[in-house]
């Protein structure tokens, strides 16, 4: 065991059992899986992805490249978690991975939710800087959100031994936490990692809510939560990541980042070895030597690349009798299957732990995502934030400010400034507490220990990429880090190269004879840490993937056994089968009812747009291909609209319902797109028009009553409404009471039969429907669905936009020149005159009668003229609609055929897998050509 007897922020009274690769171990509450593994003497935690080399825990945080594990049990296992970030719980089951995860086939039953929040100041990172910033902004009165990725705030200094105002820094931490909790406008989110920084200061935060509880997690609680925060000001206090130096055989278990070793000792009471060597180019790792010495380890040497490290830290270390090997490097290591056994630093030094520090890289990932720019700081030897286009400030280690005192000061100042920028406080921070500081000996940038022996030197541990790979890439002609990244895969792992990126840039620079500053970094992209698919998906799953829209009449349809079809977001009755009926039988029966008796359909799903304003008429005239000048109040007119390319886009009926007021219907699936389209023109092209558009699709319920006996049903429902053909002509609108409900009735027909559409406020929809069914009962009224409606309209040759058209069809192609005004301008008109759009041999909508009357052509079937051809075969068109007709007693189809109107009575063939199916081209109207029935 390598657990210290005391110390750290773990609770030794709460042991937790867990297994790793099926072996049982015990840790304590407050441990991460990584600290517990180290405490149990587990040094090898994975094999590398390409070379299968043994790897150990390297870091103590998000940057971990080696300790990737599968954490399982319960409701399926999660791949590729970092042991350094997995909080231990009792019963945890983990397995090692070779940097490649496994997807569990067990369904993920957990919930993931989302929350949208706004604040004045968002502080990212709850280390000393972030806490100070949140405190300053909060005290000024701003609404503050502080997000920190760890289980408790405190950041790096939980792993240190600093004194603040003469007391352990953790005392200060506790005070600040209490102060923050007392501020009602400050919200502290823990286990919450800011992962994405988007435009307009939108920051995504992924919060883990139950994973640390293991099986004890409350079932009703969302496992994770995705916060989308809009902040007026953002303070990034995201700290810095320690970077290693690169040397031969630098990947053995037992080789760790020096700061991480300190964290294991001080925060978790774990010593990850027995005999430790430090390898550094800066002062920070000296503190590691002291901590290890205090913890009772043998520390034979600090290997420092600097020629004469002097001053506070080196002196303190020397005072303890630890040898400082100045101007030396670790140039090689040796070890066995438990990891490191010795290092070579001009001499062989036996050790099982090597603590490496090559300096620190400010965690600028979010800053880059915010479109901030970096600058290379020669003194600090790292990239630091420079210009920032968004309202963001970077403070503390993330800004290249590394001392605790300076971090707190900078945090306070940034918090106060951010609050004051949005109107809270005067921008002057409170005084900072006293922190002991030690004068530092400057860092000497050092990246790569030269090696002539051809030994393996790893740059990216997760991706198993070596210096030789980088050399090869540069040798091949690559000069950009982005190329080297793609050629070698450096930085493409799940750690996003947090410990590899800058080293790789420096090595590329060295090979090209350029400074690292000139090489730059690759672009950091969201997310900052891996985020589960399920969290991004949130609640948008199952039936909530896209909420289903149903009409007020829906319950009746369900109760009466309707089979539903998805039409856009709507659930529409497709047909209403009787017991033992097939779909075909049901549809034929429904069609017959419309043609011979009376039938009713719920058409509430049609899009409805209320158009008001003094320019409404002008607007309609431009949007639709036909003109509305002569449309009197109380009448309606069929309308067609085109896109700018002249192709049919949608259709519907425009009702003139009052002075300067119209109601336009759209196809059920097209409502949103049509409203969008209208708004786009109004807002961008005709902003001077006085027109207001309102979607009222859901406000009206509509029942179509169709069939020769529909008038009788209407009379029964609305005795006061004159329904005879003269008083209530085709395309007229009447307002009045229907079944005791205020209603607007239109005489329009999509079936070609006499028909009335009754519109009522949607909350009366069901009542109206029931009244219609009751009034129609003596006439045998039949409910019908979309399929019968499709057949009936096809018999009349009415195109369904989106089925018989596909964005390449003009009104003329549909044979609908009658609905295209020759006099006025409208969207698409100019395009109709283009040479190709005016060609006579375009695809025309025609009818098809299969030569065998029982032959039902599949919709989508392509048509050809010549039976025997080898591919590519010339295609002349395709079947758009195809049905069996009760009225015709046979099958028929609609099709788009090249020059179709000139091919009447000629033959085309549908080549289907079984054989060729011949059909005769006809007019696209099969029923009541004269319109007598409809107008009756």
């Amino acid at each position, binding site marked *: 065991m390598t657990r210290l007897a005391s110390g750290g922020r773990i609770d030794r009274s709460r042991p937790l059992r867990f297994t790793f690769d099926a072996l049982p171990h015990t840790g304590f509450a407050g441990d991460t899986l990584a600290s517990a593994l180290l405490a149990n003497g587990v040094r090898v935690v994975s094999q590398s992805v390409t070379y299968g080399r043994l790897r150990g825990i390297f870091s103590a945080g998000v940057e971990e490249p080696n300790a990737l594990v599968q954490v399982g049990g319960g409701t399926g296992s999660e791949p590729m978690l970092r042991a350094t970030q997995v909080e231990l719980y009792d019963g945890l089951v983990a397995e090692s991975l070779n940097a490649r995860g496994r997807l569990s086939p067990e369904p993920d039953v957990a919930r993931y939710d989302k929350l949208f929040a706004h604040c004045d100041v968002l502080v990212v990172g709850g280390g000393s800087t972030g806490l100070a910033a949140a405190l300053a902004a909060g005290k000024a009165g701003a609404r503050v959100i502080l997000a920190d990725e760890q289980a408790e705030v405190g950041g790096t200094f939980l792993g240190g031994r600093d004194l603040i105002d003469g007391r352990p820094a953790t005392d200060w931490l506790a005070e600040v936490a209490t102060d923050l909790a007392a501020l009602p406008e400050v919200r502290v989110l823990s286990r919450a990692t800011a992962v994405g920084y988007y435009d307009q200061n939108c920051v995504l935060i992924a919060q883990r809510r139950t994973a640390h509880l293991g099986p004890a997690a409350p079932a009703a609680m969302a496992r994770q939560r995705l916060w989308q925060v809009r902040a007026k000001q953002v303070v990034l206090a995201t700290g810095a990541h320690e970077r290693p130096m690169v040397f031969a055989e630098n990947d053995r278990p037992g080789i760790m980042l020096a700061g991480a070793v300190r964290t294991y000792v001080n925060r978790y009471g774990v010593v990850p070895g027995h005999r430790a060597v430090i390898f550094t180019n800066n002062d920070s790792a000296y503190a590691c030597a002291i901590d290890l010495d205090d913890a009772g380890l043998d520390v034979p040497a600090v290997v420092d690349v600097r020629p004469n490290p002097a001053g506070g830290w080196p002196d303190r270390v020397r005072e303890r009798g630890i040898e400082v090997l100045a101007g030396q490097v670790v140039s090689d290591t040796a070890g066995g299957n438990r990891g490191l056994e010795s290092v070579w630093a001009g001499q062989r030094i036996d050790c099982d732990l090597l603590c490496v520090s090559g300096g620190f890289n400010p965690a600028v990932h979010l800053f880059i995502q915010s479109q901030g720019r970096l600058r290379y700081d020669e003194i600090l030897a790292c990239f630091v934030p420079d210009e920032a286009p968004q309202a963001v400030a970077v403070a503390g280690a993330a800004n290249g400010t590394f001392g605790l005192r300076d971090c707190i000061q900078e945090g306070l100042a940034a918090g106060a400034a951010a609050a004051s920028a949005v109107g809270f406080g005067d921008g002057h921070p409170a005084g900072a507490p006293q922190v002991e500081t030690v004068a530092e000996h400057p860092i000497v940038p050092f990246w790569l220990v030269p090696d002539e022996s051809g030994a393996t030197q790893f740059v990216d541990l997760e991706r198993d990429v070596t210096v030789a790979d980088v050399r090869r890439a540069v040798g091949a*002609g690559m000069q950009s880090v982005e190329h080297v990244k793609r050629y070698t895969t450096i930085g493409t792992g*799940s750690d996003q190269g947090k410990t590899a990126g800058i080293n790789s840039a420096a090595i590329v620079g060295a090979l090209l004879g350029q400074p690292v500053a000139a090489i730059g970094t690759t672009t950091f992209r969201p997310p900052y840490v891996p985020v589960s698919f399920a969290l991004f998906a949130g609640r948008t799953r199952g039936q909530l993937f896209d909420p289903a829209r149903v009409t007020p009449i829906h319950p009746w349809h369900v109760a009466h056994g309707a089979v539903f079809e998805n039409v856009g977001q709507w659930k529409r009755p497709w047909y209403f089968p009787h017991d033992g009926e097939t779909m075909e039988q049901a549809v034929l029966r429904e069609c017959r009812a419309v043609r011979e008796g009376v039938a009713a359909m719920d058409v509430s799903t049609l899009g409805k747009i209320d158009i008001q304003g003094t320019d409404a008429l002008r607007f309609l005239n431009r949007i639709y291909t036909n003109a509305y000048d002569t449309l009197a109040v109380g009448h309606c007119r069929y309308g067609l609209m085109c896109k700018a390319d002249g192709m049919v886009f949608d259709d519907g009926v425009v009702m003139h319902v009052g002075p300067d007021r119209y109601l336009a219907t759209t196809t059920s699936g097209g409502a949103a797109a049509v409203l969008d389209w209208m708004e786009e023109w109004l807002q961008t092209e005709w902003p001077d028009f006085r027109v207001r558009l309102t979607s009222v699709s859901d406000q009206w319920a509509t029942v179509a009553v169709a069939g020769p006996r529909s008038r009788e049903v209407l009379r029964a429902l609305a005795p006061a409404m004159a329904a005879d053909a003269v008083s209530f002509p085709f395309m007229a609108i009447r307002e009045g009471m229907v079944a005791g409900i205020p209603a607007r009735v239109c005489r329009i027909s999509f079936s070609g039969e006499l028909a009335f559409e009754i519109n009522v406020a949607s909350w009366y929809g069901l009542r109206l429907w029931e009244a219609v069914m009751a009034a129609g009962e003596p006439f045998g009224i039949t409910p019908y669905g979309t399929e019968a409606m499709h057949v009936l309209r096809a018999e009349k040759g009415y195109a369904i936009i989106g089925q018989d058209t596909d964005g390449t069809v003009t009104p003329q192609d549909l044979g609908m020149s009658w609905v295209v005004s020759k006099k006025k301008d409208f969207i698409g008109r100019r395009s109709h005159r283009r*040479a190709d759009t005016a060609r006579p041999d375009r695809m025309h909508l025609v009818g098809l009668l299969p030569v065998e009357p029982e032959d039902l052509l599949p919709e989508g079937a392509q048509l050809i003229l010549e039976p025997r051809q080898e591919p590519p075969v010339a295609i002349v068109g395709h079947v758009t609609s195809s049905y069996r007709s009760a009225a015709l007693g046979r099958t028929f189809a609609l099709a788009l055929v090249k020059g179709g109107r000139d091919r009447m009575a000629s033959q085309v063939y549908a080549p289907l897998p079984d054989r060729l199916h011949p059909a005769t081209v006809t007019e696209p109207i099969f029923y009541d050509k004269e319109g007598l029935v409809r107008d009756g």
Partner: protein
Amino acid sequence: MSGSEHPDHLWRNPDPKRSYDVVIVGGGGHGLSTAYYLARNHGITNVAVLERGWLAGGNMARNTTVIRSNYLWDESAAIYEHSMKLWETLAEDLDYDILFSQRGVLNLTHSLHDTREAHRRVYANRLNGIDAEWLTPEEIKEFCPIVNLSPDLRYPVMGASLQRRGGIAKHDYVAWAFARQADAFGVDLVQNCEVTGFDLDGGRVTGVQTSRGPIAAGKVALCAAGHSTVLAAMVGLDLPIQSHPLQALVSELLEPALNCVVLSNAVHVYVSQAHKGELVMGAGIDPFISYAQRGSPHIIEYQLAAAVELFPIFSRAHVVRTWGGIVDVSPDASPIVGLTPIENLFVNCGWGTGGFKATPASGWVYAHTIARGEPHPLNAPFSLDRFARGALIDEHGAAAVAH
């Protein structure tokens, strides 16, 4: 897996010469393949490819590498099928393992409408000699077992079209393979060289202004994808192109789980698993117009919701990286390849969300167009003046499949 699978030498990094016979603006996949075929098919090697950033760092480095040729219209089918045939021998032609894998591309349908349009495409493909099959849900289960075929889905899977010859390739390797061979023919690949203006003499282009100085050119060939409008505007040419962000993402490396490419329009996502094991996916464009290579988070949220709907097994995979490219969308969602009203200036753009698969054919026909001064029969229908004539090749109508 790293470095060693690549050749030792890829390209020189020459400084630009004062003048070239042909200057190609834009060193993406299409620019590089154009340079290669100019040299290989037409013997024109005094050529420079000018790239403002690093070679193939635009959409070529950002796309999700779906390759298929099952387009609806004859004109599209012809050019994309030509591309497919080139893909089938490209690794040998270029002597580079580009990881081309014909693992099959499934297009799922979720409504009667989708299904009708998919059938239409399948029937059309077969007549055009392109392999196409219709799979029932049971057949999908066999072909790709992890697709969620539950009837409880909000939009249940009703079937799928399948092109078995479709698949993926490694985008970067494709670019480098073309670059390497072009370089070997003597083509100068000039990086960090932004074209900032054009030299005109009457109605003729004679050269370009660049961030590395003026360069004279016998012919200038635009190949700048998302930035085509910016370049064309420099010569007063108004291209009918809108540039939109298109985002994509990858997961961490995972053990093999998905054996083919799956696309769905209604539950909008498309996904494949790359050779190393990461899931690669994308969805629709960000609706706003932009030249910035980034998009909005809700697009990512929606596409992952779709992914988890269709593949519940993906639930606990993680997004490791998201990014955006800028795609050049034309009014009919088909490319523009051909001459311009300005003599000796050529244009190749409008490939939008789906031009990776066209990389070889695009270069092939564009090189022909540049060399001969007239379009190859395969790109003749894709001329710029089709918008004035109205001879659109509308691939985003009802049967639309992006990517």
